[in-house]
């Protein structure tokens, strides 16, 4: 099949970017989208031109590194998939495909299709953990956890931190990302001791990084490659309210 690509090219964070058209002739339906870009890059390189910079690593949908907006949808139009596992069989011969980076103020573009997602790391650093140093753990089975609870925590913990939720949100809200971690740890008995301070600090870090507010459009769940439910955002909000109320009582 033959495809036409409109790809965002941008030299660095300080230079304005623009779309450049590239032809991708003779590609096959079994290729992944990133292999398509590899092919285009081989051609560009042979012409002595700079290849398109884009992030990818594991190429099996779990590391969360790849981050492309395909025809306006983060990770493309197939549900529950990262762009590294989006195959060309889902496109039509002759189609023109627009490829852009994540667009959100807290994720500045640093070259072509690569953005800086350091804000996500800073949110986890603010409290997205259980404080247990190596060696302090009790016996694993000393703390039984109901199967349903563990499964629900796992649903939240499945987040790969790619940032598609932010990229699709009209407010560039990181609510789904933060809610996933808050919920994962708040659901488990191990996470109880730091429950209030965790959510409080993480939400504060989220706001400080410049992410917008959640206005409940659920677009994040629709594009999430792990289909993480927006119900966790409700859970985060409850956790956050509780932490505020408790803090009130502590201060009086």
């Amino acid at each position, binding site marked *: 099949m033959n495809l036409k690509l409109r790809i965002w090219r941008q030299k*660095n964070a300080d230079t304005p970017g623009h779309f450049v058209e590239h032809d991708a002739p003779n590609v096959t339906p*079994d*290729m*992944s989208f*990133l*292999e398509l870009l*590899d092919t285009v890059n081989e051609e*560009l*390189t042979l012409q*002595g*031109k*700079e*290849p398109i*910079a884009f*992030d990818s*690593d*594991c*190429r*099996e*949908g*779990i*590391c*969360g*590194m790849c981050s492309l907006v395909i025809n306006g949808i983060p990770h493309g139009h197939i549900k529950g998939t990262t762009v590294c*596992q989006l*195959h060309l*069989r889902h496109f039509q011969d002759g189609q023109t495909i627009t490829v852009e980076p994540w667009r959100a103020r807290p994720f500045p573009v*640093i*070259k072509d299709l*690569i953005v*800086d*997602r*350091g804000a996500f*790391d800073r949110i*986890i*650093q603010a409290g*997205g*953990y*259980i*404080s*247990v*140093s*190596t*060696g302090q*753990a*009790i016996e694993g089975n000393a703390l*039984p*956890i*109901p*199967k349903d609870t*563990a*499964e629900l925590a*796992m649903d939240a*913990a*499945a987040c790969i*931190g790619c940032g598609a939720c932010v990229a699709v949100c009209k407010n560039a809200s990181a609510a789904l990302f933060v809610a996933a971690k808050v919920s*994962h*740890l708040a659901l488990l008995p*191990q*996470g109880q001791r730091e429950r209030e301070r965790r959510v409080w600090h993480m939400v504060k870090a989220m706001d400080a990084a410049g992410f917008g507010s959640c206005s409940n459009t659920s677009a994040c769940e629709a594009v999430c490659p792990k289909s993480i439910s927006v119900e966790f955002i409700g859970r985060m909000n409850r956790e956050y309210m509780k932490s505020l109320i408790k803090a009130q009582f502590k201060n009086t």
Partner: protein
Amino acid sequence: MKLEAKIPSGPLEKKWDRYRLEMKLVSPANKRKFEVIVVGTGLAGASAAASLAELGYRVRCFCFQDSPRRAHSIAAQGGINAAKNYQNDGDSVYRLFYDTIKGGDFRSREANVYRLAQVSSNIIDQCVAQGVPFAREYGGLLANRSFGGAQVSRTFYARGQTGQQLLLGAYQALCRQIALGQIEMHPRTEMLELVVVGGHAKGIVVRDLVSGQVTSHAGDAVVLATGGYSNVFFLSTNAKGCNVSANYRAYKKGAAFANPCYTQIHPTCIPVSGEHQSKLTLMSESLRNDGRVWVPKRPGDNRPVGQIPEDERDYYLERKYPSYGNLAPRDISSRAAKEVCDQGRGVGPGGRGVYLDFADAIRRSGENTIRERYGNLFEMYERITGENAYATPMRIYPAVHYAMGGLWVDYELMSSLPGLFVIGEANFSDHGANRLGASALMQGLGDGYFILPYTIGNYFAHCSQPRPAASHPEFRLAEAAVKERTHKFLSIRGRRTVSSIHRDLGHLLWEKCGMARNEASLKEALEKIPAIRQEFWENIIVPGESTEINQALEYAGRVADFLEFAELLCTDALMRRESCGGHFRTEFQTPDGEALRNDAEFAYVAAWEHQGEGRPPLLHKEPLVYEELKMMQRSYK
């Protein structure tokens, strides 16, 4: 170079206790005076960095990804082994030790493996405490499943994303220490040179992958947790960024490289679909718990699955290995798949594939149960191949997956270069010639949480070589070397892309030094590698500049090292005139086609020392002394 494994004397089960009693300690007040450089943030690196920081050491941590959460440990699917014996099925520390030694085909060190089995339980406790959502029984207790090479169920798992969950646990511990100011984290930064001062590893030179700036970092010790080298084969299940460069740079600075020929070919991967393919995707070995592997009995039988009657199918693993069946170890299963495909009985396009069939399991337990166990794997399979594996069997074929070889380390996980510690897949220590499933996660976290944090203190307590300033002349020299190499890559301006040359190298290695090797094929590879390398240095094209993000430049550096390392790998494979584990020399096999070891001549670790450019590496042998177990022919029949 003298290789001293420093294994404590005394009975096997007392060695680690004894070591911990006899090692020297660093007092809490003194710990903060030591600075440790950790390269890599996978399970080993992240767990080590976090644990060292918790102890009070100052840590500087580096990774080439945009976040420490993305290292390739994250892709491990199936699980992590531990000798908890929660299933009451006869497991014990000793059995885990025994299975691991046997699985490794008697080419690993008894003392290291025993210690790993001992700490395995602590790893599970630690991960549970961090909030890793392991699978549970209805009573709320931890669930287990079985894995290849074992007859007990000792594998802990979190759906098909165990590696992800364990890594996020370690990453979160790392984040906590970053927030506390104990760890200085450098993402998107690649180590390009190791710096040795006064015979000790005392720092690294790195390139900031965003600004292109080359800088020096001095430390009291350097820890490499930089993973395996499977990408030397171009196609592997590793992430695109995985590379041998940090390890190879260390090798060139004097650290011995051990057993590079021990590479693991994983039996259950999705077959190659075309020339464009950039990597291979693994389907967890746990699938073999319920899937039955088969091919048609008759060569060239290309009828659709449904039209091949039961008695015309060859469930070859069950036939050849009745007691382990579809759970035979990885090396054995992979070779068996190659064998049936070589006989023309392979399935799918190109005939390089075998069926992994769930029809019986679905009949027995229902589709829902299978979906619950492997749902995400079936989805992944469908995404990649467009086929529904609930209705039609999966097609699988072996692919390069893991490197048992790595930098040589002693019992303290220190390389032959004092001050340089190597942990996780990057070292050679625990898996011998073949790694069992669900043991990589165990080793990475064992090294990082429970072994290195002890042994590194012993080095500091004895070390008389102070931390140099990052302005020391050795750093200047290393920086200059890095810049010169970078300049060279950019100035060749030839006609071949780096990737096309990497593909050539990978193809050569897969054909000549892959699942089966022999003297002729290895000699051919050794003859052809220098020509590919010459083509690289004369004819590559790397566009762009060094002062900005330049992925082609990063890639060129990694492939340049693969091109040299490939020769070391083949040299080792040629030297080892026996078959063991993942190293199968066709000249050395039993009448029924199993690996034939030669314990009289090759019961040693082959540690190679770099002798300088253009000179062959020097072989050092560390004899493998078995005090506890008797070396014997592996049997899974």
